[in-house]
């Protein structure tokens, strides 16, 4: 939970209730940050019977510089819509990393774009990198970078099942682009399986309170 303020403010004294996962996604405006947040929220709220409240950044920062979306996902009603220190931080630009990385919980999960972000990792911080832009380019369209990241995110966090997230991708992207986006999504999942397949048990234990898996 956070103090009065938009999605970027400091945490407050009250503790986040158990069963609540807080997520921040950031990148530069145009990378599809808000759409990524929307798809995660949709997967949780519509396909996985959870409660999910998404807040997106508005104002000049949403149009070019560090743009951000936050999600509060819970098995009970989300009363407080803003987040404090996120459990998961998805970062797709260096500027976004600089602006928000201090907020991430000490044991929070860092997911980043390998070629655009050079994180300083704290001891014991679960950290997962993916060259999502390169992968998107190899699929023919760099614009689906955010969906590659989304596939990777889903594989890392297991917040919802891959199928549930896939359904949300299909329902959220512009008509006619479903195939390309689903390919991008699968490529993100595959990258995780290839690079981090063995380490998976560690992270799934961390988020099991909300995923129930």
């Amino acid at each position, binding site marked *: *939970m956070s*103090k*009065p*303020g*938009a999605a970027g*403010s400091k945490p*407050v*004294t*009250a503790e986040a209730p158990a069963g609540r996962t807080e997520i921040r996604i950031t990148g530069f405006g145009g990378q599809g940050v808000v759409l990524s947040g*929307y798809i995660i*929220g*949709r997967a949780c*709220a*519509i396909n996985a019977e959870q*409660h*999910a*409240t*998404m*807040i*997106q950044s*508005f*104002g000049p920062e949403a149009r070019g510089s560090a743009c951000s979306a936050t999600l509060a996902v819970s098995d009970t009603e*989300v*009363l*407080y*819509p*803003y987040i404090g220190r996120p459990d998961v931080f998805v970062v797709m630009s260096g500027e976004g990393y600089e602006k928000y990385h201090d907020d991430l919980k000490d044991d929070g999960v860092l997911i980043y774009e390998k070629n655009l972000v050079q994180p300083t990792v704290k001891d014991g911080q679960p950290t997962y990198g993916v060259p999502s832009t390169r992968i998107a380019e190899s699929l023919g369209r760099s614009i689906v970078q955010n969906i590659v990241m989304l596939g990777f995110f889903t594989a890392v966090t297991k917040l919802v099942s891959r199928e549930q997230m896939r359904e949300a991708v299909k329902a959220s992207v512009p008509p006619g682009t479903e195939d390309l986006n689903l390919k991008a999504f699968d490529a993100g999942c595959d990258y995780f399986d290839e690079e981090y397949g063995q380490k998976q048990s560690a992270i799934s234990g961390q988020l099991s309170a909300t995923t129930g898996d």
Partner: protein
Amino acid sequence: MKADPAGVLTGAHYLDGDFACGEGAMAAGCRFVGGYPITPSTEVVERISRRFPMIGGTFIQMEDELASMAAVVGASWTGTKALTVTSGPGFSLMMENIGLAAMMETPCVVVDVQRGGPSTGLPTMAGQADMMQARWGSHGDYESIALCPQSPQEAFDLMIDAFNLSELYRVPVMFMMDECVGHMTEKVVIPPAEEIEIVPRKLTSRSVGEYLPYYADRQSVPEFARAGDGYRFHTTGLTHDERGYPVMSAECQEKCVRRLVEKIRSNADAIVRFEEFGTEGAEVVLVAYGIAARVTQMGMEIARKRGLKVGMIRLIVAWPFPEKRIRELAGEIKAFVVPEINYGQMVLEVERCAAGKASTVLVPHGGGGVHDPETIAEEILRAAK
């Protein structure tokens, strides 16, 4: 009557409050929007302007808010359900024609997605400081109806009620959202059209020669004749008689204004709506609305864990205010605590109704965010002492 299926996007959606508000309007039968887009309300008209061509609605981006409200009043006189959408600065500019709508008894809905003020204030951040403006914003005596949703789902649901109330009482209904509810995205379930009850315009059954546009009992609402249906009559912002013609006398003013006030006051019990929980045996009762109500509920839970008996009234309809219930509770409890994102508006109503029987504590917030639930909990603990 049931909703027109054309405007109802049945299903489970993931929508922000502004989009949900727009969907609610279309489901309610709204087919005209005149507006001058302003943050944080822009998404309401974005949604509507994209969907209107498919359902036979008309959206006009007007030159300013004065014209927007004027267009809405005109559209409503054709029998079309009409809406305008704005935020604080535009709400101020609309006040003159909101008064005209009240005086001419024109059904319509005005959405105000509240942001921090005064003046242009905080365009992208939440406020709740237009609540008294919703009640007293235009000059002269009239009674207002105002609703305040706390979630995107409620933005949809209450929009239907807003249109229905505007038709029932022939008044402009104020739809008091806030930036946080408007810009948050949550699950919104839109029911099938046959489950949505719609109040149609109460058209006159009188013949052209017999129709009197403002003939009604002391507490009731006159019958409506649409422009273009062949009825020739006059309507005006001036004090008028049953024929709608100006009459400049204290007697006519008394009759005219009394009915504008009494058609709402005498039906207040039917219009007032609130959610009440945990008030039985409570020492402290919280009163909140909109986004502040969600955070207040968290403050209540913290205080309860610390052993206090705390209940809550969540206003769904802010105007008319639930006077009776607040008066009753005042005799049973120690204090009301009222967190709102302003420096004291609805708290004045609570204090008036408490009439010294219970103390009243404001938990103010200047805008730009929401309260820290811990701050609310501390105020509850202090009030209980």
